[in-house]
């Protein structure tokens, strides 16, 4: 999960890279603490194009094209619930094997997430607000974790689901004025174990600045004009090593710091947005996969 400041985005992120997000103006890669009005829905669609790679003898390249759908609902002015599901149009892996270079891919729905956000602290002032909201949720194993191709069972990282129930929780803070908005999020994701495998737990610290670049001034402006925001988002993500059988995979997890500049147009009913997320610092464990670039474009609809 700005207002409906759909908390959003977080979801997507959680689903596709470990965050969660939706609602209002709000960040593009994680959540916001802005409200979803009581009894109202917010809908978000985000197309995600993600490229990952690893070094080492396997020299893996992963390409993901997905659509993340998020629906938010305001239970009351402080409590909102969200549901999110990703659909992977294509998850593609190029990997070097003893048989040579191999290309494997899959598609389908991923794991569904549901989470709630409660506004614990709210300080409203003229033309702005400051809010703090804890979030907590679960990811259900609705995606396929046993997909096969001509070679055999697809590797874990290529399956659309991991087969386990996961839980995540954290806190989101938002400071918003008519000129700019700052969002921060601390989130921890505890990944469950299934069939002898557990994806490494994940901790992340996200921050976002959204600055109004149009209209330049609101003086003598009546009504509610559309805004254009320039975005800059920062995502610091640490992933533990995956657990496999009785041990850990040395070539999994690690720490990455990413920046995502972007643009957002905000109307009363619609938000259109896009960001390009690039790594600044990468410290993978061994030859673990790391993000090279992620492009996100989408919209949010205020019902």
């Amino acid at each position: 999960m700005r207002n409906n400041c759909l908390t959003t985005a977080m979801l997507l992120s959680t689903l596709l890279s470990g965050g969660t997000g939706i609602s209002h103006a709000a960040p593009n890669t994680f959540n916001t603490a802005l409200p979803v009005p009581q009894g109202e829905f917010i809908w978000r669609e985000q197309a995600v194009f993600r490229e990952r790679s690893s070094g080492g003898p396997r020299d893996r390249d992963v390409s993901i094209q997905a659509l993340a759908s998020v629906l938010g609902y305001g239970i009351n002015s402080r409590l909102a619930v969200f549901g999110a599901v990703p659909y992977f149009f294509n998850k593609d892996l190029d990997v070097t094997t003893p048989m040579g270079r191999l290309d494997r891919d899959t598609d389908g729905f991923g794991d569904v997430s549901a989470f709630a956000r409660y506004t614990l602290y709210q300080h409203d002032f003229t033309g702005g607000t400051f809010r703090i909201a804890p979030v907590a949720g679960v990811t259900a194993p609705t995606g396929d974790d046993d997909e096969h191709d001509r070679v055999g069972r697809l590797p874990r990282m290529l399956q659309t689901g991991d087969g386990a129930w996961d839980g995540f929780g954290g806190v989101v803070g938002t400071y918003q004025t008519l000129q700019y908005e700052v969002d921060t999020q601390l989130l921890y994701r505890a990944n469950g174990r299934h069939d002898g495998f557990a994806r490494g737990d994940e901790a992340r610290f996200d921050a976002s600045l959204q600055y109004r670049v149009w209209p330049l001034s609101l003086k003598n402006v009546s009504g509610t004009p559309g805004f254009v925001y320039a975005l800059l988002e920062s995502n610091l993500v640490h992933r533990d090593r995956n657990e496999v059988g009785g041990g850990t995979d040395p070539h999994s997890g690690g720490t990455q710091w990413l920046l995502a500049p972007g643009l957002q147009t905000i109307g009363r009913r619609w938000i259109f947005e896009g960001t390009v997320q690039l790594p600044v610092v990468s410290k993978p464990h061994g030859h673990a996969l790391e993000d090279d670039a992620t492009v996100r474009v989408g919209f949010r609809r205020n019902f």
Partner: protein
Amino acid sequence: MFKQLLLLSAGLILSASALAAGNQYTLGVKGVACPYCAFGIEKRLSKVDGVADVTVDIGDSVVRVNMAEGASLTEAKARQAVKEAGFTLSSFSEAIEPKDDHAQ
């Protein structure tokens, strides 16, 4: 004489028009800082019985509410609707001037 009758008729018509216009209220709302949020307030206030039209002047943090003919808005109802949208009502006043410009 004809001119006086004409003016009298015009006055009566305009007065009737003014009376037909509903009450207008001006709300000060804290916490609203983007168009998407403003729409949430519009939606919640529009669900209050008798509300005909809602306009948010986001730069001034002011919400103008026009009521249907014969309807009125209480501060308690306005406060509740603004709260349900996730914001805070800071002021409530009934506009003195009627909605219809011809009546001025």
